[in-house]
């Protein structure tokens, strides 16, 4: 392999991992909601859009760096998520309806309302936060003069990726070590058993929805320095996290992280070696293939490995 080809490959892998890390964070929120409530939250992308607008407003009015606004957007989205679950989704869950999945339809409605509210408030302009470090990058040849290859690592992408990893680690700690986290996992594993063990399931649902919203709100803040916003941006991210949630194995956090990385790498490699126009085709080919061949997703592969099935 010539050095040029190697350079292209390495650069592609760097891009893929960075993108995959961010995808994973977006999908995590949808995944934990899926795990606990057994519904797909189709307003997920719109919640991310809300997070992005919060970061945008904080940046343009108060000049708060988008990365710092994670600390404001995430709690705000938590409150929004709790409110949505408490006052909209929980009541609907109790109602007998013709359709068993009427909560899912409700989330579609919530998404539409959010997107249209954003259109009314912000118009459908494309907005950006022109941060000073937007095109800053580290170059291998700057750090090491005699480097045979020129690789670059974008500053905002790396920061976003690092924060995404940190948030994921915090989430893992929360789920594994705290009481509330354990109760959430118990609810996800077996609702009836958790109920019998004295877990307040309804409260866990509320917390989970808040947590899922907070995660995707944080992801919104991480995306804004490298992307742009407009009110209808939600759909594409809902779609990506949906694919990852399926790929990861409905409701598995580890699966979602791996799924995000796989999708990121896959998209980057497709872009380099097949053509960037093929990325959406590839995304849905994965989606269909997973549904047919490994319906349990990555998580089921991990499980069967572990138990030597």
């Amino acid at each position: 392999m010539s050095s040029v080809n190697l350079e292209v490959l390495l650069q592609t892998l760097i891009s893929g991992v960075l993108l995959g890390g961010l995808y994973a964070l977006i999908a995590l929120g949808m995944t934990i909601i899926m795990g606990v409530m057994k519904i797909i939250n189709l307003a997920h992308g719109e919640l991310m859009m809300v997070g992005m607008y919060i970061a945008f407003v904080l940046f343009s009015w108060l000049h708060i760096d988008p990365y710092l606004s994670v600390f404001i957007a995430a709690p705000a989205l938590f409150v929004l998520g709790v409110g949505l679950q408490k006052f909209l989704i929980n009541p609907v869950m109790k109602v007998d309806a013709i359709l068993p999945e009427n909560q899912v339809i409700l989330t579609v409605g919530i998404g539409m309302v959010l997107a249209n509210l954003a259109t009314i408030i912000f118009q459908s302009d494309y907005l950006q936060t022109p941060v000073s470090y937007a095109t800053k990058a580290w170059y291998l040849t700057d750090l090491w003069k005699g480097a045979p290859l020129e690789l670059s690592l974008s500053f905002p992408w790396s920061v976003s990726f690092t924060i995404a990893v940190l948030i994921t680690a915090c989430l893992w700690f929360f789920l594994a070590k705290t009481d509330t986290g354990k109760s959430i996992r118990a609810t996800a594993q077996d609702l009836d058993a958790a109920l019998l063990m004295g877990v307040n399931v309804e409260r866990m649902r509320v917390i989970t929805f808040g947590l899922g919203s907070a995660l995707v709100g944080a992801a919104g803040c991480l995306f804004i320095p490298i992307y742009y916003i407009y009110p209808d941006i939600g759909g594409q991210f809902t779609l990506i996290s949906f694919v990852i949630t399926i790929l990861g194995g409905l409701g598995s956090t580890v699966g979602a992280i791996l799924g995000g990385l796989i999708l990121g790498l896959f998209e980057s490699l497709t872009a380099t070696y097949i053509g960037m126009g093929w990325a959406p085709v590839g995304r849905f080919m994965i989606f269909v293939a997973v549904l047919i061949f490994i319906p349990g997703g990555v998580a089921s592969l991990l499980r069967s490995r572990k138990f030597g099935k």
Partner: protein
Amino acid sequence: MKHLSLATVFLFLFSVCAMPVLAADTFDLVIPLPLTGKQAKFGEIMKRSYEMAAEEINAKGGVKGKKLALSFEDSAGKPETARAIVEKLIDVKKQPVIVGEYTSACAKAVAAVAEERKTPYLVVASADDAITKQNYKYVFRQNQVNDHYADAFTSFLKEVVKPKTMAILYESSAFGTSGSEAMERDAKKIGAQVVLNEKFETGAIDFKPLLSKVKAAQPEVIYSVSYANEAQLLMKQIKELRIDAKLFAGGAAGFAIPEFIEGAKDASEYVVSATLWTPQLKYPGTKEFAEKYKAKHKDYPSYHGASAYAAIYVTADALTRAKDWTQDGIRDALKATDLKTAFGPVKFEDKEGYQNQNFAETLAIQVQKGEFETIWPKNHASKPYVYPVPSWKERR
């Protein structure tokens, strides 16, 4: 049930009575255009310009004593919505002439409806070649076609750059695809080899894999066709990867609006773009329009605005000359248009396989010190061109 039917009767009576009354002293023109969704930015520029032109015409007494009453319908850039709006305008509101829309896909849908219902349709800023190539009798296009978008840019390439290799990146849309095909043909004509011709998805986040491939191919010229956001992301990521070329270029649209410079900042410097119009042109009314727009909205309008502004003048001119305000009357008047506008001279011709097409002069612009400067053709130039552009390392 009784209430309902009563209400319907009232509504019906009201609408029947209301229409002729309203129509008495105004000419209603409903314009379909994208006000939400991805193309909203362009829709906004055009809406402002339509309104400015109508205000000016009304201040001078309107058309044959009637004021132009503009209103807008949002198609969100979706062909099916655009189609539904126009069907309603023609069938229900009996509007005898249609003006507007932006994306090529929408304009195509509208053109088909207009032709079918024998209603003249003036295309304002949609570039896909096919729109005026289908032997439609009622479809007129004021802006230049995609095939010729890059004429001035190509002549700049041919006379100044003389590239041997070239990479073309384009968005997967009707506009992107036809733009890349046109550039491929032009490249062949000037003897440049296209080393890479790649499509990308609208809304893509990460262009770096694609760009690493471009970097490996080392083209002398990188030419991209896309709408607003992708143009900015592409240049930002080109800077990030330090891809050096003798010239970075774009095919109008996203590369020729002020947001390109605001969004891509220093990464936009020295980028050359084809465009159809600049505020620096020496047509009568151009400067006045540009300055008036800037005073009102803080930015210079792009060619979309100028074309929209001129379209109202062209419509008003056709209405003035039309022997009656029927669909055919207005069509015949449009066909005979020969008007000097702020956008340039407008005249609808049948040639090169196009029907009712205005062959406007195109230009090349370059970002210099954060401003668009006209660099080509020489008689319109506001600043000399910078070529070859400095490498990213030198720019720091």
